[in-house]
């Protein structure tokens, strides 16, 4: 009796799997190629990185387990890391929210105009982030000698007498960097907001007008924003992930390393130890911290937006 029962359940499980495969097999086949690459190049690396952060792997020798030593060294001994962490947090706390609200404001304003003007304005605002590597043009604008565009104009207007070292003087570097980062920050979230504004149910505005909405600001606050919450959440993810990943723009214009490590971010620190010093275990610890910061901030902000 008992034996037959287990046999029965075994055969039903087999049948279930078989039926499941018949039913969903094709679905899994469709997913398989992407899924495989995604796991190999995006998920497993995160896990490996976390594991490696507890080792002293340096490419040449077989990795040995060192416990929390990498993390202790990061937080207790590595002054540059502390500086990089501080810079990363400051830069993202400024550029993340500012770029988010800039994208929202411009998308809203762009949406006020007729389709043809809207198309043109969208292109104008999206072009900098669209054209990728062209941020190097800021080398010409911020160039340290009098041939730099900004210095040239200021000297020509007699506002300054000697060229300002926009990219190497620690007094100005930070402001210059923020300007460049914001300049190219209107990316995917900007487009999502434009789409969001465009798709708000038009009858809501009429209903709102009847109910006493008096001007465009009230309309924005009471009708438009609440109905595009999903886009806002998506835009927040894009802005946050982008702002913590800033690195190449800074090294492109301000050099690597920048003067006094003034604009040294976690991405730079990671590249320094990973690509130059080959201290892979240590670099993995930096990567893990960056990963935790990115995921943590995203989760936190999304939860807050969800409550609104």
């Amino acid at each position: 009796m008992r034996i037959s029962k287990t046999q029965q359940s075994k055969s039903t499980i087999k049948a279930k799997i078989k039926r499941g495969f018949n039913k969903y097999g094709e679905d899994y086949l469709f997913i398989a190629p992407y899924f495989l690459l995604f796991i190999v190049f995006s998920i497993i690396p995160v896990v490996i990185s976390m594991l490696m952060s507890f080792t002293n792997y340096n490419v040449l020798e077989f990795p040995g387990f060192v416990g929390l030593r990498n993390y202790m060294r990061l937080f207790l001994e590595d002054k540059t890391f502390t500086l990089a962490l501080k810079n990363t947090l400051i830069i993202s706390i400024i550029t993340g929210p500012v770029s988010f609200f800039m994208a929202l404001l411009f998308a809203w304003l762009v949406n006020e105009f007729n389709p043809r003007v809207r198309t043109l304005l969208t292109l104008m605002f999206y072009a900098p982030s669209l054209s990728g590597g062209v941020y190097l043009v800021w080398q010409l604008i911020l160039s340290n000698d009098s041939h730099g565009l900004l210095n040239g104009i200021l000297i020509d207007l007699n506002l300054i007498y000697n060229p300002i070292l926009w990219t190497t003087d620690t007094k100005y570097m930070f402001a210059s960097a923020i300007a460049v980062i914001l300049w190219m920050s209107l990316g995917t979230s900007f487009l999502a907001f434009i789409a969001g504004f465009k798709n708000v149910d038009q009858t809501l505005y009429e209903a709102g007008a009847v109910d006493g909405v008096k001007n465009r600001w009230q309309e924005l606050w009471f009708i438009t924003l609440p109905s595009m919450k999903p886009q806002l959440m998506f835009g927040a993810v894009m802005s946050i992930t982008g702002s913590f990943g800033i690195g190449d723009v800074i090294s492109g214009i301000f050099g690597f390393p920048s003067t006094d490590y003034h604009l040294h971010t976690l991405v730079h620190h990671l590249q320094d130890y990973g690509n130059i010093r080959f201290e892979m275990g240590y670099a993995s610890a930096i990567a893990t911290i960056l990963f935790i910061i990115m995921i943590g901030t995203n989760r936190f902000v999304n939860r807050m937006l969800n409550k609104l």
Partner: protein
Amino acid sequence: MSAHEKKRRLKKRHKKINRSPVTTFFLFLFIAGMGMFMIFPLILIIGNSFKPLNELWIFPPRLLPIRPTMRNYQDMFTVMSDSIIPFSRYLFNTLLVTVLGTAGHIILSSMCAYPLAKKKFPGRNIFFALIMMALMFNATVTAIPNYITMASLGWINTYLPLIVPAFSAPLGLYLMKQFMEQIPDPIIESARIDGASQWKTFWLIIMPNVKSAWLTLMLLSVQGLWNMGATSFVFSEELKTLAYALSQILAGGIARQGVGNAVSVVMMSVPILIFIFTQANIIETMSSSGIKD
């Protein structure tokens, strides 16, 4: 088209509620000013690319050339002729990586998005949660383990590490899945009842209906691949890309500045042109991009 136009005009009329013309005027001024700031550096580089070398360093600096010349564009192909690798090789590499990477990304993401959006297979929610998580971190985090993976696959110093990871960019899959969810189920069901296989349904019913989404994936993927500079995966000069060549030209100092500007213009014009032609489709795709909990 005329019906479309009418619909648009109607929409416009709706929007005129609650608008004071004075505020509209000042808002337009504001946004025009901001737009100028955004576009100014790009105009500068276009202007510079047409300047003869002696005009690049005049004081005070000028935005537009006095005597425009095509010289910089012609020089593009000769400036690196004394190096072992001709300029056209860098251009070819970038084209190859961009075209293959983008094609693979569109096909694999669409195939994967279809069951995710329309089927209820077990494991679906976990998989989508992983995609959502991947949107929340940057590729720099995975750079080191990826190098080890590429090395153990024997892919170092080939085109593969530049192309293959681009196939599985999470943003593309996410946007495609969100967009496919809007396709009405009856269309798919009727195709299945007519005897179309899943593969056929996918190619003949789904793909034509998500044209906007794959144009968007194309733009995003081209944007990433076209601008990809030096990587640690490739060390042979003949496998390097245009963006890398650009940084080398710019590093070549004052004499190379003009050519550098011309290359920059070529670099930026490709994604901008794609965006101009696909703009409406991209906005349409983005309208389904929202994160719904």
